[in-house]
C-alpha cells in the first residue's frame, strides 16, 4: 500500500509548483495509470517516490512507514523504474550483463543471478538476444530489455515513466501485452505513466493530473465516463470517444460532415 499525503514540490524556490498538495493511495497489486499532458507533474511524482528528488513537502507512506532519506535505499530494492529512453539506461555491454546489473548491486550470488536474469529475459521474450549488444536492438526490444532489468530485481512496484512514448503502435501494444502478463503472473504493482488515454484500458485504477494537481481518479469506467474532466485536462480523447461524442451531439448527419469535423 502506497499513500501519498499532501505532496507539494517546486524545482526552485521562486518557481511554480510542479506538484500542488497531491494526495493519492495505491493498493498493492493494482495496475495504476497516471495520465497527464507534459508538465502535469506525473514524472516528478514518481521521481520523488524513487528518492531521486528530495526537499518536498508532505509525506509518502509505504505499508504505513514514512519514506525518508535514511530508508530510501531499502525501498529502492522493492521499487523498479523504466524510463522513456532505454539508450540512456543501459550500463551493460550485452543484454544479459545489463539485466544482471541491478542484481549485482544487490549482491546476489552468481548462480541465483543467472537464474533470475534468464527468467526476466524469458518474461519479456528476449532470452535469445541475451548476448546481443543493447545498442543494436530495435526500440521495442530495447525497452523490453529495460523492463527485464527492472523485473530481474523482483520488485514489488514496477514504475514505467512514459516507457512506450518512443515506440511505434506495434511496439506499444507489445509492451502493454508483456506488462499484462507480468501483472497477472507476478501480482506486481504497476504504476504506468503516460499521456496517451488509449494505453490505460488495462489499468485497474487511473489518476488524471494537470498542472501539478489531481483532476480525477477512479476506475477506468469512471475516468472515461467523465468526459468533461478529460477535455479539461487537455488530453487527446481516444478515437472511439470522439466519434461517440460527435454522434451523441447529433450535429453531423452525413459521413462526410462527421469525418470533416473529427
Amino acid at each position: 500500500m502506497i499513500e501519498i499525503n499532501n505532496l507539494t514540490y517546486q524545482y526552485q524556490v521562486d518557481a511554480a509548483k510542479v506538484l500542488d498538495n497531491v494526495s493519492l493511495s495505491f493498493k498493492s497489486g493494482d495496475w495504476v495509470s497516471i495520465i497527464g499532458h507534459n508538465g502535469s507533474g506525473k514524472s516528478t511524482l514518481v521521481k520523488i517516490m524513487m528518492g531521486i528528488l528530495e526537499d518536498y513537502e508532505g509525506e509518502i507512506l509505504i505499508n504505513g512507514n514514512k519514506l525518508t532519506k535514511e530508508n530510501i535505499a531499502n525501498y529502492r530494492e522493492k521499487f523498479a523504474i523504466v524510463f522513456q529512453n532505454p539508450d540512456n539506461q543501459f550500463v551493460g555491454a550485452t543484454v544479459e550483463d545489463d539485466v544482471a546489473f541491478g542484481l549485482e548491486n544487490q549482491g546476489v550470488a552468481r548462480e541465483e543471478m543467472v537464474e533470475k536474469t534468464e527468467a526476466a529475459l524469458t518474461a519479456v521474450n528476449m532470452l535469445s538476444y541475451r548476448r546481443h549488444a543493447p545498442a543494436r536492438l530495435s526500440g521495442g526490444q530495447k525497452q523490453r530489455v529495460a523492463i527485464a532489468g527492472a523485473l530481474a530485481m523482483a520488485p514489488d512496484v514496477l514504475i514505467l515513466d512514459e516507457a512506450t512514448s518512443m515506440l511505434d503502435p506495434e511496439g506499444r501494444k507489445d509492451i502493454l501485452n508483456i506488462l499484462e502478463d507480468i501483472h497477472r503472473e507476478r501480482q506486481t504493482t504497476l504504476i504506468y505513466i503516460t499521456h496517451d488515454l488509449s494505453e490505460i484500458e488495462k489499468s485497474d485504477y487511473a489518476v488524471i493530473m494537470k498542472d501539478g494537481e489531481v483532476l480525477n481518479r477512479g476506475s477506468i469506467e469512471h475516468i472515461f465516463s467523465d468526459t468533461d474532466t478529460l477535455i479539461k485536462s487537455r488530453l487527446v480523447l481516444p478515437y472511439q470517444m470522439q466519434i461517440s461524442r460527435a454522434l451523441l451531439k447529433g450535429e453531423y448527419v452525413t459521413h462526410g460532415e462527421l469525418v470533416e469535423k473529427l
Partner: protein
Amino acid sequence: MLSNMLLGRYIPGNSFIHQMDPRAKIISVLFFMVIVFFANHWLGYLLLILFMLSVIKIAQINIFFLFNGLKLLFFILIFTFLLHIFFTRGGTTLFEWGFIQIDSEGVITGIYITIRLVMLLIITTILTLTTSPIELTDAIENLGAPLKKIKVPMHELAMMISISLRFIPTLMDETEKIIKAQSARGSTFMTGKLKSRVNALIPIFIPLFISAFKRAEEMAVAMEVRGYKGEEGRTSYRELKWGLKDTSAIVIIILFGVMLFLVRM
C-alpha cells in the same frame, strides 16, 4: 566516415583471441608494448610485422577493415615520420635545400618509428575489437586489485572506463546525426579556410555536449535507482576464467620477445 572508426568498438567472434581471458589479453598487450622497443634493425621489424600479421589472422579480423578503421589516425603517423625525416641527423645526406636537410638516418628512423606506432595502434585496436568493454573493465579492476590497498578507486575507474567505451559508438552516431542536421541547414565543414572550418564545428560541439550531459545525467539516475552505490557489497555476473590458452599466449609473447632481443645488433 565516423562509423568506420574502430576505436572502442567490439566485434563479437569466436576466435582464439576472442576466447582468451581479458586479463591475459591486457598482460600480453603490455608485454608487446615493451617488446616492440627491442627491434632495432630491419630483421627485428620484419619479425614484428610477421608476428602482427599472424595475430590479425588468429583474431579473424579482416586486415583491410582494420586499416580502414585506423585511417583517421594516419595523420599522427605521417606527422611522426616527417618529424624524424627533418630533424634526425646522421648517415649520408640525401637532400639539401636551404635550411632543410634530409639524411638517410632520418628516413630509416622515421620508417622504424612509424612501424612501431602502427604495431602499437593495431595491437590495442585488436584488444578492444576482441574484448567487450565489460570484460575489459573486469580485467582492469581485477589486475588493479592490489592498488585498492593504497586507496586507488579501481572499481570506480573501471566503471568509468566501461561506460565511456559503451558511449563512444552512441556519441559517434549522435555526431553524425548533428552533422547531417547542420548540413541540411546549409553548414559546410569540409570547405573554406581553416578558421571558417573551425567555426563551423561549434554548431556541432554545442548540441553534442548538451546531449552528452543530458545522457550522463539520465544514466546516473538510472544507475542510482537500480541500486548502484559503488563497489561495496557488489557481486559480479561475469566470471573470469584463466585457462591453458591464456598461459600459452603469454609464454609465446615472452618467447617472441626473447627472439627479438637475440636478433638485436
